């Protein structure tokens, strides 16, 4: 995520999208913004301070604890009016969130890994009750073995819970995503909870120069929250969480689906408005040097920066390589992704999660499925699973993947469809034909 890489980022003219992280032209009204050094956690906390939700239920868990600590400190110093509810578990954190949202409050929280897993039951209830709220997730591997480092496993596990799911590349984007998440989730066409993912440690704990926008400008952007059906209007009582018999359950699920589908448009609208206000434009995808690409890597999260750097190298040596970064896993922008991938010859989908027993990891599965109806002209699609439990992704690993794509283009059928990147010991030659794998004891 170097400045040079950012400057070389190209706009997607066709889609009218751009994710310029550093605005070139700053409007006069934006002079009060500050350029500050913040970690991802601190950026999230500052975004929450500026939005100042009514209720923040929270429970500490590494690596997202700092968010709750800073919210507590902002409240203690009178910089936020928010009610901090320091609960006794993540299950209760999301239970409080559901109660508060049903009462008409704007709600935010933060968690990671096991914490998200402990919220599982409530994730579905928040979404099924169509209660908007914003949850920052500092992505971290799920136990066992207990690990604590960056990994998308918990977020991928929650992908079907009915939440919108952002994945951020940088600290700046995380901050921007939190602000946009309120607008998107609260939009009457959507009314769904939103998860804003930031890679554990890589984003939560790493400091970056970012633009911290003016408090007032952020408040104006998110607007005051008003909702129609609240528990706190005794003149108009409502019942939340009724039993739903078979005659109605499917139709209510379809209302969630409708919210998800409309969210695709709302995300682009809010991203465009955010761009007009703050100079940083966002869409569903972040295509990088994709215009004339022949091979590409699809990725989400912070490691996209490393892949972009390798693409710059490859471009310099005449290779037509690109990166398609996905900003949203839910709703899954399949049509938009397909448009970018169809002209290519070979694509590697890089997943930072693992699905034992499945045919590859989740993002790969959805992309290959999305391309199926174009099977006559679709590119080869392979899955490269990387970075589990915080395992480092090296530039050399990315170069290897691009050379595998070249080899695939050239008709080499020995390129494995699914492979773990950076695995020590004997590599698995084929996902479905696993040879005995011996853990290299004593190696480091």
């Amino acid at each position, binding site marked *: 995520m170097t400045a040079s890489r950012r400057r070389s980022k190209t706009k997607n003219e066709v889609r009218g999208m751009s994710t310029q992280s550093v605005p070139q032209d700053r409007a006069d009204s934006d002079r009060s913004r500050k350029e500050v050094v913040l970690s991802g956690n601190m950026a999230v906390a500052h975004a929450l301070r500026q939005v100042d939700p*009514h*209720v923040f*239920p929270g429970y500490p868990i590494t690596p997202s604890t700092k968010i709750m600590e800073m919210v507590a400190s902002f409240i203690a110093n009178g910089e936020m*009016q*928010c*009610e901090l*509810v*320091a*609960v*006794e*578990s993540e*299950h*209760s954190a999301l*239970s*409080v*969130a*559901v*109660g*508060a*949202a*049903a*009462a*008409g*409050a704007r*709600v935010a929280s933060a968690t990671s890994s096991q914490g998200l897993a402990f919220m599982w*039951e*409530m994730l579905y*209830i928040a979404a099924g009750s169509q209660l908007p709220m914003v949850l920052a997730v500092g992505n971290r591997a799920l136990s066992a073995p207990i690990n604590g480092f960056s990994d998308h496993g918990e977020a991928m596990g929650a992908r079907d819970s009915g939440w919108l799911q952002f994945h951020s590349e940088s600290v700046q984007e995380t901050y921007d995503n939190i602000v946009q998440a309120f607008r998107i989730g609260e939009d009457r066409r959507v009314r769904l909870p939103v998860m804003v993912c930031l890679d554990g440690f890589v984003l939560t704990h790493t400091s970056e120069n970012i633009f911290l926008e003016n408090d007032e400008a952020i408040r104006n952007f998110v607007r*005051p929250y008003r909702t129609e059906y609240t*528990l*706190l*209007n*005794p003149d108009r*009582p*409502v*019942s*939340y*969480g*009724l*039993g*739903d*018999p078979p005659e*109605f359950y499917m139709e*209510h699920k379809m209302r969630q689906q409708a919210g998800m589908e409309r969210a695709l448009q709302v995300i682009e609208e809010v991203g465009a408005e955010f761009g007009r206000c703050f100079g940083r434009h966002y869409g569903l995808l972040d295509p990088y040097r994709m215009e004339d690409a022949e091979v590409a890597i699809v990725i989400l999260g912070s490691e996209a920066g490393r892949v972009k750097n390798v693409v710059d190298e490859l471009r310099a040596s005449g290779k037509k390589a690109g990166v398609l970064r996905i900003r949203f896993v839910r709703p899954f922008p399949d049509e938009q992704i397909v448009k970018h991938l169809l002209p290519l010859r070979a694509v590697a989908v890089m997943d930072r999660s693992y699905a034992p027993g499945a045919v590859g990891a989740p993002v790969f599965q959805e992309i290959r499925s999305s391309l199926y109806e174009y099977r006559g002209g679709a590119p080869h699609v392979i899955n490269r699973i990387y970075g589990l439990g915080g395992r480092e992704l090296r530039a050399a690993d990315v170069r290897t993947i691009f050379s595998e794509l070249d080899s695939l283009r050239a008709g080499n059928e020995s390129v494995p469809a699914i492979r773990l990147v950076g695995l020590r010991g004997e590599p698995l030659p084929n996902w479905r034909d696993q040879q005995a794998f011996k853990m290299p004891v004593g190696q480091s």
Partner: protein
Amino acid sequence: MPNPELLLASKHSEPMASGHSLCAGCAAGVIVRQVIMSVEDPVVVANATGCLEVCTGVYPVTSWNVSWIHNAFANVAATLSGVESAYRALRKRGEIPAREIKFVAFGGDGGTYDIGLQSLSGVMERGHDLVYVCYDNGAYMNTGVQRSSATPLGANTSTSPAGNLTSGKAELRKDMTAIAEAHGIPYVAQSSPGYYMDLMHKARRAFQTKGPAFLNVLSPCPLGWASEPTDSLVLARLAVDTCMWPLFEIAKGQFSLTYLPLEKKPVVEWLKLQGRFRHLFQSDHQNLIDQIQSGVDQNWQKILERAGSAVPSFAGPADSDRWGY
């Protein structure tokens, strides 16, 4: 002097409409109405998953004339604490009218003693201004009468069956009221719908209390207790008269026994009306009945010692108008 609780209840709008599907003789609906009708202010009700929830709201209809939320099984306390936090937050910013609203949670013993204990404990420790009512029917009735930690010793349930080798539940029940008291919250009470004025008076005090209040209310269940629906309130009274379920309150740490039976009845009178204890009378289980009686006696002795000279003077039928005996 007219009774304030009865006066209020007579003028109160109906919080929970008829037409719900609770069993005939289920005490949960009685408890809900007695509790809510003891307070003037509008209430928001939260319900744990369970009989009461299943039977009072199935889309597209609801029995609730007051705002109501059901979230999940384990978290009714946390959920209501979220509603209450939102209320404070929105009032603080002037985004809702400055109007007094009360908050009450209803959970069964499964949702209170077992799966919801942690959530309730957190709420009591955090000091939210709400009332938690446990309607304790002593098992998981909604799923078909499985034992809970509130099930009494010797009770036959579907997961503590009385068989050739077993005599129903082998363990003593958990003292949830004492657990609530140990949190140091400002109001804790134990009550029974059989003594409706006792329950309504305590509910009123609970709502008037600033901070968390916990009411543990015995809730006879014809299905799980295998008793006659017409016996429910008889059982609710017998539990008190046998001292199996003493009525008391602890207000700001001050313990008061609110009912002293004129004559302490043997616990067998309570047991014999319930099919879940039938096996105790059919085979040679006198030792278990003795064990139940001695457990009741020991607990009652502790209660009396605790009450000391403050045993109520209004005990028994002499003051029946005031206390609904």
